[in-house]
């Protein structure tokens, strides 16, 4: 057989015959001969056995899917703390509580809920202004002053020498100490969470009530200067001709932003310009950048702080009497000058307020000296929101949780406790109103906040008793102030527990479940000898039994210990019970357990590359550049397969292997040209997915891509069928007509879509919309409707010919030789693979429709590559190895990027929901977005069984077991990635880049795992039932 069958259709046989079971199989192949009655019965039995086994395999995979779900659920519920964003806005005319004795609600011109104290304000953020930068260095002790000490004394001096004009306080940030999150806190008065679940899910604009929006509603003219983060948070809020924003990402540049702010702020202070604005928000970045670049203890930091000192002295000089000047740091910096975490140095910023009028005071004379350290008399950053709101006569933003700052309301003599109690009552009442609305929106019962409600009643009683008396004394007012303040603090700590704290036990339990499920899956995929399907029944029964026992234990435990959250206890114990159950099953079949470590280069590379990718997700750089890393890995696999092809003894195997491996490498590189860069990849990446980097529409030339692939791809796939003479029966109609027609319709859809978007035919917009929607629906009907019926009812792609015995054609299997003629089965060599792979092309058609033109091209290349991979795996005899399913995993992940996606929320192509529909419809719209987003992973998951079925003999035993093994291996790849990204996200939960990089990658990994689970189990393994039954109809079960 070695020297020269010219036709590749024989190779499948060559491979099979080379195996040890060859003799047996040849006997079985005789089964086509007339059967006896016994044989019919045995055949029937074989079919029943297969169906039962197939069902059990699906059930076991579903059990693993459930474990993944529970693990991800537990981790997510501890990690992705969500806060509902309420739409309500505070209204100037409606104070949260009946007004105090002396003041009735009024307009912004006199002050909404409380008389205002300032007409105008300048609010300056000095990014990363740590508190200890602003206070003098305490010379006692052996320490010497650092560069950052005593470099910006202006705040301390003014607060000390004119306490009625200025005060300086430590200003404590809520982690994460990143500028974006801090700005949210400083303007809304809320605590940061992962997902502020509001209407504006994908964008960054703040849509809950905030100080800037209140100012804008009151027709104040707001100017912004500096860091451009403000513009993504408050788009269109600022006076366009006075506002100047600067890019905030270049941390090496210490001066551009600062000089820009300074250049534009001082002209505005000039009396001739003072009528042009009401509030200025300035944002200096130099101190932060100096910290990032040099660290705080560096002469550049001292120089920067000196420069700031000068600027603020100058600002004090030029300030008019009606304007309040606020300077603050949004966070601090650690010893290396970085921030994002929750260490003391990072959260301790400084707050300084200044006014030419003598309005500020201290409740105790000893408070005149600003605190020496940030531990004394700190205020929270959210306290700025009610303080500034009331000082400027604005209503307190609806979601605010902060309290007014004492120094600003106590009066110059430091004894106006009535005023202090009044403002605290207003803030507390707004908090109470917010809490009530939140509890209603979330369906929380009053019991969960019983303690804060009772504090609220006590504070109100205190107020009523004092407000009733004609002349209340100072102590009574202090009591009222303190009780409202207690309520505010209690509510804040309650909210912090609710929103801002990670639930570590839940996270750890979730990771435990995911990790132990990974072990079960790994043992199942790679650690068992023999037919996997036959081993599944005991695994399933024991796992289910374990899970049931676990559930009972969980319920028992949550009854016994009522403080345990029952859903946490039950889900955890169920999952762990299931895992233990499967472990006992592995013990039960322990003789079949094999050495778990890889023994071939393929096993090793599969493991090493999966682990390398997983480990890389701990670094933000490797996460950002995942697409290029996948290209590198896939090319490496291509090279290894080329080398392996060179090692093949059979000349045809060698030549075909080399050809397909080279093709595989080149196609990978061609597909890699389709890119959609994420922000962090700039400037080293150029997007090609859309017409330009700033658009999300395709260029006209890109519309040709789907048309070209509609002409090429069906022909290419056909060659893979023709090689083994499987281009028969349904395959002809499907590949040559339906698939091509569907792809052409897809191309037509995108052309119409471009015509509609670009308004090429004005006046026909509605017609275009209707037409393109119908075309898309027809395409989907062809792909999944016609496609699935073809797949379900197609006969195996064979042709049986009777030939005379002297025929020399060896291209097909000769079955019977009794007499002068023989029966020849064309397409015998790849009956399983060709039959099953029809399913791949169907899903390909559906997926390619919902991709943009560039993505349709990429996914077409993916399909081509997948068929090449089948050939490579076959010529290198690797169908039993882990390498096929793992390469498909890498391919799926790679093409995720090549179809215009990134592991960021912003890259989700929401508009794909509207391809075959004109309105949002459940469940179709989310399914369409899923098909668009994870189309590549879905296609590759559906292709997995074909890797082990390609060119396998029809009557080979244990094929279902091989499919099971391959699917398990494929899932193992995604499960490993998911576990890694989950662990890294949990471990790096206070990392600067958590929100931007690690959290989105974790969410992508989790969703991908679940989607691939579902598709691999129900579409891929489910599909093999159809194709096996259809093959067995011809070849029998015995």
């Amino acid at each position, binding site marked *: 057989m070695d020297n020269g069958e010219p036709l590749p259709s024989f190779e499948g046989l060559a491979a099979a015959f080379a195996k040890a079971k060859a003799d047996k199989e040849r006997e079985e192949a005789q089964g086509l001969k007339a059967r006896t009655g016994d044989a019919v019965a045995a055949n029937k039995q074989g079919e029943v056995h297969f169906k039962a086994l197939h069902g059990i395999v699906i059930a076991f995979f579903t059990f693993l899917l459930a474990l993944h779900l529970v693990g991800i659920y537990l981790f997510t519920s501890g990690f992705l703390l969500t806060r509902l964003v309420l739409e309500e806005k505070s209204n100037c005319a409606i104070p949260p509580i009946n007004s105090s004795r002396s003041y009735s609600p009024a307009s912004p011109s006199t002050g909404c809920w409380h008389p205002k104290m300032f007409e105008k304000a300048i609010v300056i953020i000095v990014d990363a202004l740590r508190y200890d930068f602003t206070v003098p260095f305490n010379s006692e002790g052996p320490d010497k002053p650092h560069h950052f000490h005593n470099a910006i004394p202006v705040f301390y001096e003014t607060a000390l020498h004119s306490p009625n004009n200025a005060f300086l306080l430590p200003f404590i940030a809520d982690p994460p100490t990143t500028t974006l999150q801090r700005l949210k806190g400083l303007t809304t008065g809320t605590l940061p969470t992962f997902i502020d679940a509001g209407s504006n899910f994908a964008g960054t604009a703040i849509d809950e009530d905030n100080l800037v929006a209140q100012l804008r509603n009151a027709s104040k003219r707001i100017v912004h200067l500096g860091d451009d983060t403000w513009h993504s948070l408050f788009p269109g809020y600022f006076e366009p001709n006075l506002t100047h924003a600067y890019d905030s990402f270049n941390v090496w540049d210490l001066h551009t932003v600062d000089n820009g702010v300074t250049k534009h702020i001082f002209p505005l202070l000039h009396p001739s310009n003072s009528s042009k604005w009401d509030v200025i928000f300035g944002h200096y970045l130099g101190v932060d950048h100096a910290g990032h670049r040099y660290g705080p203890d560096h002469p550049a930091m001292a120089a920067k702080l000196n420069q700031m000192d000068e600027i603020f002295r100058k600002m004090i000089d030029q300030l008019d009497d009606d304007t309040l000047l606020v300077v603050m740091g949004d966070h601090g910096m650690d010893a290396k000058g970085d921030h994002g975490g929750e260490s003391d140095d990072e959260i301790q910023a400084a707050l300084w307020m200044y006014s030419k009028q003598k309005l500020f005071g201290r409740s105790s004379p000893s408070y005149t000296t600003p605190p020496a350290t940030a531990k004394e008399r700190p205020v929270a950053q959210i306290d700025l929101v009610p303080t500034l709101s009331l000082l400027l006569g604005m209503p307190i933003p609806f979601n605010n949780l902060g309290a007014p700052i004492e120094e600003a309301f106590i009066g110059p003599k430091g004894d106006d406790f009535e005023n202090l109690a009044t403002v605290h009552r207003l803030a507390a009442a707004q908090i109470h109103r917010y809490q009530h609305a939140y509890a209603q929106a979330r369906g929380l019962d009053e019991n969960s906040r019983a303690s804060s409600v009772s504090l609220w009643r006590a504070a109100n009683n205190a107020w009523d008793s004092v407000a009733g008396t004609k002349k209340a004394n100072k102590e009574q007012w202090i009591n009222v102030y303190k009780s409202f303040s207690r309520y505010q603090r209690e509510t804040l700590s309650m909210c912090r527990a609710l929103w801002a704290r990670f639930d570590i036990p839940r996270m750890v339990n979730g990771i435990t479940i995911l990790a132990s499920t990974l072990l079960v899956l790994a043992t199942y995929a790679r650690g068992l000898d023999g037919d996997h399907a036959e081993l599944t029944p005991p695994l399933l029964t024991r796992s289910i039994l374990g899970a049931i026992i676990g559930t009972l234990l969980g319920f028992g435990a949550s009854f016994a210990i009522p403080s345990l959250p029952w859903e946490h206890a039950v889900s955890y114990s169920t999952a762990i019970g299931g895992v233990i159950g499967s472990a006992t099953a592995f013990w039960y079949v322990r003789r079949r357990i094999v050495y778990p470590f890889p023994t*071939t*280069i393929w096993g090793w590379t599969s493991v090493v590359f999966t682990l390398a990718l997983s480990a890389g997700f701990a*670094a933000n750089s*490797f996460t950002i*550049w995942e697409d290029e*890393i996948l290209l*590198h890995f896939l090319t490496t696999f291509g090279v290894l397969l080329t080398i392996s092809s060179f090692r093949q003894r059979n000349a045809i195997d060698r030549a075909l292997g080399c050809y397909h491996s080279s093709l595989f490498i080149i196609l*990978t590189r061609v597909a*890699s040209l389709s890119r959609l860069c994420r922000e962090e990849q700039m400037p080293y990446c150029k997007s090609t997915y859309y017409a330009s980097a700033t658009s999300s529409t395709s260029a006209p030339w890109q519309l040709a891509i789907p048309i070209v692939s509609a002409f090429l791809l069906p022909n290419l796939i056909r060659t893979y069928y023709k090689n083994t003479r499987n281009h028969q029966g349904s395959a002809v109609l499907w590949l040559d007509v339906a698939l091509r027609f569907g792809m052409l319709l897809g191309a037509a859809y995108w052309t119409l879509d471009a015509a509609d978007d670009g308004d090429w035919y004005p006046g026909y917009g509605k017609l275009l919309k209707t037409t393109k929607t119908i075309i898309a629906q027809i395409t989907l009907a062809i792909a999944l409707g016609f496609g699935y019926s073809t797949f379900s009812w197609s006969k195996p792609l064979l042709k049986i010919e009777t030939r005379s015995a002297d025929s020399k054609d060896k291209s097909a299997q000769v079955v019977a030789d009794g007499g002068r003629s023989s029966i020849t089965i064309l397409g015998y060599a790849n009956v399983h693979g060709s039959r099953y792979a029809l399913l791949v092309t169907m899903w390909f058609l559906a997926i390619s429709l919902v991709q943009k033109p560039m993505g349709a091209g990429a996914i077409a290349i993916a399909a081509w590559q997948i068929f090449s991979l089948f050939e490579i795996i076959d010529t290198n*005899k690797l169908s039993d190895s882990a390498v096929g399913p793992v390469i498909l995993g890498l391919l799926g992940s790679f093409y995720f990027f090549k179809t215009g996606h990134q592991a960021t929320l912003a890259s989700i192509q929401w508009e794909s929901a509207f391809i075959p529909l004109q309105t949002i419809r459940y469940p179709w719209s989310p399914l369409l977005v899923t098909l668009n987003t994870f189309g590549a992973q879905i296609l590759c998951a559906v292709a997995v069984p074909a890797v082990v079925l390609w060119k396998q003999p029809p009557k080979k035993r244990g094929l279902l077991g091989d499919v099971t093994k391959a699917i398990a291996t494929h899932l193992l790849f995604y499960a490993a990635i998911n576990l890694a990204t989950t662990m890294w996200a949990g471990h790096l939960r206070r990392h600067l880049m958590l929100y931007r990089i690690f959290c989105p990658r974790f969410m992508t990994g989790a969703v991908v795992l679940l989607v691939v689970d579902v598709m691999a189990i129900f579409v891929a393994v489910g599909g093999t039932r159809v194709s096996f039954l259809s093959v067995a109809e011809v070849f029998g079960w015995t």
Partner: protein
Amino acid sequence: MAAANPAEKSKSQATPIDLLNYDTAKLYTHVHPILLLSLYFYSFRSIVADPISTLSRTLLPLGVLQIAYVAICLPPTGSKDVVVEKRKPGEKKKAAPGKLESGINGKIIPAFLSLILSTLAATPLLFGILILFGAPITTHIFETGLCGAHIAFLSTIPLVYVHGVDGEKWKEIVGLLLPIDEVYGCMIGTMFGAWMGAVPIPLDWDREWQKWPITIVTGAYIGFAVGKLLGGTLLKGKRIKFE
């Protein structure tokens, strides 16, 4: 790894290449990687500063050093066959050529051949492979080409010098079927080093040396030295198994 796959090619009959049996050869083979690495790290700063001109300037010394290495240390291609031919009767005159003449025939020609092939065949091939592995297509063409040339000079010159241009032999070389020796170690080490050189590129360290293709070339040089050392000592005679 235990059972040989029957479908895989039977083991090549080739034996590992031994160094020439001179003291000079045995000494220089250890000096050579040190020289190469010193050359490289001596010019490292200027490579970082100006990759194109420095990489093209260092190409010549690299070629010279490599030629010196193969000429001093390695048996040229076909040296055993030549010996057999010399023993044929009736050709006594040619049987004992002058030392200089045999040097020219036996060494200079393979050395020259290996230099030509590395430049004209291996460099474009490696350029293509670098592109396939993700090197930029529209920019940095010269950097990529020079990177390919350095890798080619490091890996291919000794191989061509020792094994010549026999097609079957090269199929075995590409298929990683030869037993490991110093020369094979050089090639595998260089390739592996260049492969590993891609790892630091994406890191956000903002270092000048992270730019294309410096890490790849550095990896190739280090890989060459390590591969040569291991191939000539620890791993000598071992075979690479896939299954």
